[in-house]
């Protein structure tokens, strides 16, 4: 009677393994680590699979032995079985076997550690400064003097070195298809390098618990062809299309300057704007630190060419008019706990924006696109 039940249980364990093997064939999921799109994630995937298959062999041997003894040696009578206390040879054997397995695994592992963690030559690499904020990502290109937020643009087939830091709490920088995570730690400068093999849009997500909306701290990595990447760099240095005076966009621009621009810079296309933005971001941070409850100023994502962004709210919603209006009306309706909602005067002082004003700001923000924009292929998801 029991044998059927235990059989069921151990069959389940085997089925688990089988279903695991089957399920891991879904690399199409946006954050699957099985769809390696660069050498770093490739090394990581291969190391995992190498260990995994060794583990599968051990699993089958051990679980098989458990099932075997459970069925084979069921009590049949009251006689005592042979009383065996141990066997030195066996003990030594099964001490040595795991030791050998570990030596086998450790060799590619140690190589993997150095391959993934020793930085490549900075000479011909793209350098990125990635800064974690509660709850968004700031991306700076110190050589190109470009600053943006929540969307990282990169060329294919080029080494990227990311200097990883955090302004406030711990975060973690992770692009599952391209590279495993590295934590973002205040006062520590961590480094990560990777290379993306193919153009495309990749998902990134914060992986270290960082407070109330840790779940909604995401980003996108947009990998371009070399040519498109150069074009993007150019665009980031080009002013946006001008808005005709009297239009909704123009009204929105005025409202933005009056209500939003002390935290959100949106003109970093200008010359020397890069260092200015670094200073502004630092000052906003210092201002907020002084009075975390009531500060009217907080660190905030740079909105230069926001109209070209794919998402809003740090990778949360598609960046379109409807969502943007919703976001400005009440950020909590999309993402609870944002600093904007807690500190911006439009939500906390008597200055309340009317529906029309909100729509005007949204229209203005969506109009922020480089003036000579070429139809960028990456914009179609």
């Amino acid at each position, binding site marked *: 009677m029991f044998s059927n039940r235990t059989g069921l249980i151990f069959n389940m364990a085997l089925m688990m393994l089988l279903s695991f093997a089957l399920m891991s064939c879904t690399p199409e999921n946006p954050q699957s680590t099985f769809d390696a799109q660069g050498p770093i994630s490739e090394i*990581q995937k291969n*190391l995992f699979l190498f260990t995994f298959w060794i583990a599968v062999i051990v699993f089958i041997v051990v679980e098989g032995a458990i099932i075997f003894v459970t069925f084979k040696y069921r009590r049949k*009578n009251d006689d*005592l079985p042979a009383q065996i*206390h141990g066997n030195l040879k066996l003990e030594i054997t099964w001490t040595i076997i795991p030791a050998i397995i*570990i030596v086998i695994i*450790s060799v590619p592992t140690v190589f993997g550690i*150095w391959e993934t963690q020793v930085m490549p030559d900075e000479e011909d690499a793209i350098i990125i400064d990635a800064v974690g904020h509660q709850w968004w990502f700031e991306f700076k290109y110190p050589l190109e003097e470009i600053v943006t937020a929540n969307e990282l643009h990169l060329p294919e087939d080029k080494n990227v070195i990311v200097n990883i830091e955090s302004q406030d*709490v711990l975060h973690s920088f992770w692009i599952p298809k391209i590279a495993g995570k590295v934590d973002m730690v205040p006062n520590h400068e961590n480094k990560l390098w990777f290379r993306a093999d193919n153009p495309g849009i990749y*998902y990134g997500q914060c992986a270290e618990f960082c407070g109330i909306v840790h779940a909604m701290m995401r980003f996108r990595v947009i990998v371009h062809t070399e040519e498109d990447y150069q074009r993007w760099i150019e665009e980031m240095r080009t002013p946006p299309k001008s808005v005709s005076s009297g239009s909704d966009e123009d009204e929105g621009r005025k409202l933005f300057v009056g209500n939003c621009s002390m935290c959100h810079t949106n003109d970093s296309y200008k010359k020397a704007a890069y260092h200015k933005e670094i200073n502004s971001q630092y000052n906003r941070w210092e201002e907020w630190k002084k009075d975390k409850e009531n500060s009217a100023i907080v660190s905030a994502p740079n909105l230069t060419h926001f109209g070209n962004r794919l998402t809003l709210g740090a990778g949360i919603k598609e960046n379109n008019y409807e969502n943007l209006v919703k976001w400005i009306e009440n950020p909590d309706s999309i993402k609870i706990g944002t600093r904007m909602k807690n500190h911006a005067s439009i939500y906390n002082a008597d200055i309340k924006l009317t529906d029309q004003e909100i729509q005007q700001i949204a229209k203005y923000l969506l109009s922020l696109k480089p003036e000579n924009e070429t139809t960028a292929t990456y914009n179609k998801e």
Partner: protein
Amino acid sequence: MSSIINPKQFQIPRIFPRPMSHSGIWYWLGTVDHKKIGTMYGIVSFFWFIMGGIEALLIRVQLSHAEADIISPELYNQLFTMHGTTMVFLVVMPLSAAFFNWLVPLQIGARDVAFPRLNALSLWVFIFGSILMNISWLTGEAPNGGWFGYPPNSTVQFNPGNGMTFWVLGLNVLGVASIAAGLNFIVTIINMRAPGMTMMRMPVFTWMTLITSILIVLALPVLAVAGIQMTGDRVYGTNFFNSEAGGDPIFWQHIFWLFGHPEVYILILPAMGMVSEILPTFARKPLFGYTFIIFSGALIGFMGWFVWSHHMFTVGLGPAANTAFTLSTMLIAIPTGVKIFNWIATLWGGSIKLTTSMLFSIGFIAMFTIGGLSGVTHAISPSDAQQQDTYYVVAHFHYVLFGGAIFAIFGGLYFWWPKFTGYFLNEKLGILNFILMMIGFNLQFAPMHWLGLDGMPRRIYTYAENMGWELSNLAATIGGFLIAISVLIFLINVVISRINKKLASGDPWDARTLEWSISSPPPHYNFVKIPQVEHIDDWWYKKYPGLLEGSPKQNKSPNATVEDTSNVDESKIHLPDLSYYPLFVGIGLSLAALGVIYTYALVTIGLILVFWGCIGWSTEPVNEPHKKHH
């Protein structure tokens, strides 16, 4: 030098009379009997097991589908913080302590632990510490910074509410209970073994208790240091971890995991000890490789100190540190593997009876193996950069701590229940309990491996629809409810078995160690006559002396009978009287800790209680001179 006051004569005035009765609520509040203390440990920690389980179910409900809006993000963060904290500090540790208390004196042939009142203190500090930590729910400010409490997110700068202060003070108080208990069991095991019980004749569970206790005594002070520093940061404006003032959040991670990794073995070694008692009993064979099992347990405990940074592979310690901790972590697989092979070899060639406790024990080996193997994949630090902080980790440590520790504890409950109570738990319900738990457990945690590899981070209260995580999450949620049903069946079993008592003899399983040589439940003095020990599994060889001569004679010796308690002169057995003082000190400590949050008036009252309790305790005679001894 002669002291002015002879402590033997001096006693502080008693506000409450010393409890002398051996029944009723006052007896339970003042008891120093290790068995009663063990029972209370068990009941209270099982209560927290249910609370922690409800927290887990709420988490699972919220994650059952994408973009769910059932639980607010703040509450979600509180739930996973308290689920982890509860299950580690208020469930697995004290449930193990319940077994230490019940079994260690019985297994080594002692009348009680070395310091019975200190033992009561551990219990009361644990109970009030656990209440202190959970009071935070009532104030609406439950801890929300994760059971690991990483600064800066747990600092007052970023987490200004009282939640994490409750958490850190609760841990500090609970640490006192653990350290006191650890010392108590070390001294008990070293000093109070029955004559003839050398170290290498000790039951494996007692051995694992000894190793666990040594780990507790060494590891919990490390947590205490971190806890005091964090209390300083949160309450008194120190800057140990405040990055804004140059403090280092990574510093916390090193201390926390220097405690935290030995803690993993504190949680699992007692479970390994229990399984090592149950398997030989129902296979009717001695434990295969007793010495190897003991030494690999000790080695695991020792090596557990050299692996802490494998929790920090993505922190940026550099390739040299990652290599060192990768290799040291992999090494632990060797003694762990040795244990698993020895357990299987114990079953090999045995005469196996699949009782509920045996099923849980075999289930333990099967599930713990999976947790161990996924642990090896975690040790590979380059690929761990993909798995760190994902659901793969969640799957891994639940296979170790639920499939491992909790399965073994359930096995232990079914195994020793007749010893604890004098009657059996119902086996049919027990097997149903096991099957449901096994299915539910795997349904809940196996898909999490896949979720993690598919890029789902831990500690997120919601996820987008297009991530492809819905099916696995739904399966996990259903599994969670199956586990809940299985626990419910256990509770029903407890009630039904109590009503329809199926009485158990002193040795109902034909078992091996000394606790089975006395009646069930044991008398409060345990042993009528302290046994003389001659072998490992002494009771087994008293029953089957023929085995010692290697003779095939396998009949039970008629001389080996469970101790008869009908004609015992209890006045000849020395046992300490009850004491309220441990209770007062326990209450006082938690009150003082609560006062750190709210008002110094409470700190004062708490500390007065502590000091009064300590002085009263130290001047109180072990036995009231004019009363009859018990």
